[in-house]
């Protein structure tokens, strides 16, 4: 059975390690914060200028001066620090952020990503996405395997304007976990009950299937 968005987030949360600094994009990536494994400490970065992003404020305690990169009111935590947006992207560019999770419209089997622009539609802008994908050492894409028309979003080459090239390391969809290797998408795990055949059918880019593909394990 295909994963829910929450399950995709939960599967990605298993990639977190103690002491990681993590930047979570808008959408499914944001949900990852809800599944940080017990016993490990992860610091969330918000690229407008905050390390140590806390949960939403309690009703009535929201502060217009304290928002995240999604413009949501948030809180700080013990140990938080605030800085300007240049230092924020500076630490991203310098590789100090250990993991970046973001959504995508398309990912190619060579690690290209498209997630900011659809020709013919109003273009809102790339925000910090191009900086993040160009700089982060470790980027996981959280997205649906196919678009609403049922077409694969895992392609041999992106059709939409790129956000970045050769930068994505891993993709987690409702069907599968895939590493991006020199040889293309490498199928690592299947969603419980989802067949390798279904994943093959819905993956347009080069897919490598080696041996038995385990099902994802959730507690």
């Amino acid at each position, binding site marked *: 059975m295909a994963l829910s968005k929450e399950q995709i987030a939960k599967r990605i949360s298993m990639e977190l390690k103690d002491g990681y600094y993590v930047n979570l994009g808008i959408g499914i990536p944001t949900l990852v914060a809800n599944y940080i494994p017990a016993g490990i400490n992860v610091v969330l970065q918000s690229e407008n200028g*905050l390390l140590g992003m806390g949960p939403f404020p309690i009703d009535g305690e929201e502060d217009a001066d*304290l*928002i995240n990169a999604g413009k949501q009111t948030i809180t700080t935590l013990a140990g938080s620090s605030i800085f300007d*947006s240049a230092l924020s*992207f500076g630490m991203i*560019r310098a590789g100090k952020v250990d993991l970046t999770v973001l959504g995508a419209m398309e990912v190619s089997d060579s690690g290209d990503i498209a997630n900011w622009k659809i020709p013919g539609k109003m273009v809102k*802008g790339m925000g910090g996405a191009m900086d993040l994908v*160009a700089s982060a050492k470790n980027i996981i894409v959280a997205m649906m395997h196919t678009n609403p028309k049922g077409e694969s979003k895992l392609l041999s080459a992106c059709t939409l304007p790129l956000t970045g090239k050769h930068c994505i390391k891993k993709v987690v969809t409702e069907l599968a976990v895939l590493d991006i290797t020199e040889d293309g998408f490498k199928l690592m795990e299947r969603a419980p009950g989802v067949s390798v055949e279904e994943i093959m059918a819905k993956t347009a880019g080069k897919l490598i299937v080696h041996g038995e593909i385990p099902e994802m394990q959730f507690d």
Partner: protein
Amino acid sequence: MNKVYNHAVDAIADINDDAVIMLGGFGLCGIPENSIAALVKKGSKNLTCISNNAGVDDFGIGLMLQKKQVKKMVSSYVGENAEFERQLLSGELEVELIPQGTLATRCMAAGYGMPAIFTPAGVGTEVAEGKEIRIFNDKEYLLEYAFDADFAIVKAWKGDTEGNLIFKDTARNFNPLMAMAGKITIAEVEELVPAGELDPNQIHTPGIYVHRIFQGKDYEKRIEQRTTKKLTD
């Protein structure tokens, strides 16, 4: 040398048609509300606005868009604004989209007297078109130029009569970067104090970068995405 102005109207009085201005803030957080209101009142046209976002329909830079004062926006993200979209699609408004980190760093570069910087953001994308690419340690970088703005308009939490600024929480965002980058920098602050009241160790923007300062009033501080949880959560 008095940097203190009494009113936003006086502080922005010489921002005339065709000026290139920077406006601090991220979304509606930390935007110079008083200066924007004064600019709307003054009615300067054909402005080029360098600002991460373009406000919403009825707040922030959106108010200037309503009055068709903006010729060009230089931003990283311009959603949340129907009038903006209308002007863009009709060709009245020009937009240059720049990656957020590049935008921030090009402001910083101006404040540090660095004519250009290198960033990997946008390599391999349409952002790189026409730009110089250079390889360092096997990685490609774009050469991006420092901004050149006639005026920078920023909003701080506290400021003193020497122009020193302190920002609060994530309302800091682009404000100290733009404060460094204007040929003339105008700062509006929630609280203006005499020199000597701020701890020299806690200044975010040294006064040397700030040419005009005034205490703003009636801050609305609108929240774009009010997300909260119940006390019982």
